[in-house]
């Protein structure tokens, strides 16, 4: 009996400990999210929101060919950036975890990758402008080396610039979780495989990749969600020649068109959720992260 009572009080303690966390998220994430859903069914008269129930916002959204163009464009960015960051994330983590000794050097090099992440995204993004511009460092170097005669025009204000900036801003979100997973692989497992005659690539395929899958899944979720939710990189780096779903949404909110913006937000959220759930179905992140 006493054991049982201590068990329930322990349980109550855990609820007490998680209560501030859960309530803050409920108030500032749960309620606002519900409101966005509600407002997406409201009507709009000039600039006033009319609390009613209409499907106009959704009908207009799905009736516009622009919506499909925006989604195709945003998903294209997400897939390209996901593939590039996955290669970078896996390679960098693999190098750090399995090739760098001692541990302190490994940690120092990992921190070297992390530091830019703790600085302003906007500043890191605009730092590509003097680099990629028509008279930028990259073009000047190419001309000085005699590789090209004319400055390359596609470097800045293009899809290329957008993808470069995304990879620059978001690759750490892939590196950190994969590094965390790989660092927890027991070296004895790999030793055993090598002793049993497995080659380098077989070890990677059959041990490192499966044991890093939580990290790969987390990183993929982050990168896909960040690209799908971006509006500022695409606005600045494409020079206005390209757009994303959220950029269109932000233009609507700027002129206080809240109900159509909310409808667009709901659809985007469903799309992102579907992508995330797809990844989570492959890997049970919850079980592997929180034990």
């Amino acid at each position, binding site marked *: 009996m006493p054991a049982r009572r201590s068990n329930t009080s322990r349980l109550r*303690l855990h609820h007490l400990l998680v209560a501030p966390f859960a309530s803050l998220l409920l*108030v500032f994430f749960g309620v606002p999210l519900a409101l966005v859903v509600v407002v997406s069914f409201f009507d709009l008269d000039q600039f006033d929101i009319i609390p009613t129930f209409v499907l106009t916002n959704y009908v207009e959204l799905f009736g516009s060919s622009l919506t499909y163009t925006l989604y195709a464009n945003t998903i294209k960015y997400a897939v390209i950036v996901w593939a590039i960051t996955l290669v970078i994330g896996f390679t960098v983590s693999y190098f750090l975890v399995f090739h760098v000794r001692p541990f302190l050097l490994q940690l120092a090099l990992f921190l070297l990758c992390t530091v830019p992440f703790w600085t302003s995204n906007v500043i890191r993004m605009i730092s590509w402008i003097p*680099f990629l511009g028509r008279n930028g460092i990259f073009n000047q170097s190419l001309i000085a080396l005699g590789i090209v005669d004319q400055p390359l025009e596609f470097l800045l204000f293009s899809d290329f610039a957008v993808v470069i900036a995304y990879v620059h801003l978001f690759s750490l979100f892939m590196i950190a979780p994969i590094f965390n997973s790989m660092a*927890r692989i027991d070296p004895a497992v790999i030793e055993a495989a090598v002793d049993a005659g497995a080659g380098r690539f077989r070890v990677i395929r059959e041990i490192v990749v499966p044991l890093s899958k939580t990290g790969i899944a987390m990183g993929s979720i982050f990168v896909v969600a960040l690209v799908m939710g971006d509006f500022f990189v695409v606005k600045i780096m494409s020079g206005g020649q390209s757009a994303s779903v959220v950029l269109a949404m932000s233009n609507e909110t700027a002129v206080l068109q809240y109900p159509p913006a909310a409808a667009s937000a709901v659809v985007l959220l469903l799309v*992102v959720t579907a992508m995330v759930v797809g990844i989570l179905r492959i890997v049970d992140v919850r079980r592997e992260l929180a034990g």
Partner: protein
Amino acid sequence: MLRPGSRRRPWTFYGLAAFFTLYVLFLYGPMSAIFILSFQGPTGGLTFPMNGVSLHWFSALFGQQRTGDFAGSFTRSIVLAVIVLAITVVVSVMAGLAFRRRFLGSTLVFYMAIFSLIIPGLLLGLGVGLMFQFLGIKPSWYSSALGAQLTWTLPFGLLIMFAVFSRFNPAYEEAARDLGARYWQTLWNVVLPILLPGIIAVALFGFTLSYDEFPRTLIPIGSRNTLPLEIWAMTTNVTSPALYALGTLTTAISFVAIAIALTSIALIQRRRTRRGTRADAGD
């Protein structure tokens, strides 16, 4: 694969090391270019070459006409970041402790945290803005913007706590309990001191993520901007190196925060090793 016994580095080491070096250059190269360009002479432009070296663009920042309310937005950003840091540390450490056992609703809270992290920032901001509009409360940086930022920093704090606890050895805790320590005594005297470096990491995340946050803050900020929002406004209408000067300044602040956090973690670790050795010697 580097094996403890092997002397020669495998060929893959050099390939991977080259890849890593290129990646680091990719990370830091463009950033260092704008730090250099922020010291342009008064007639200098947005790209190389440098037209002399000066602090002209830094002093231009403090003149009102060019950048709006720079000093005010800077102060607000710092104060807000400190508030976010404090709340994030306390709340996410508590939540991290709770998540060491499965409890009723733990899966629900976990997924709420994950979705709060990955929801497009502007969308979350829209929701928070709507909530304040319906409640009839004027949005401001210390209420609605603070709440919007917490939906970003708290889940991050929790994920770091997961990583910290996955490396935590519960034997120390069990030893304390076996010696008769109560739950809170064990927590305060054993668990939290061991976790301190991880907690400092949570604090660093709380501070920097808030200090640089802008998609979530954009809509619910109210009438007074934080620094990242000033920078965002500048990217679309300022075409002088003043923008780079602001970038250099704000990055310097981030570097100071990183340096403070990493130095204190290193000091704690070193003190720990020293004490550890002394204890061993005393045996």
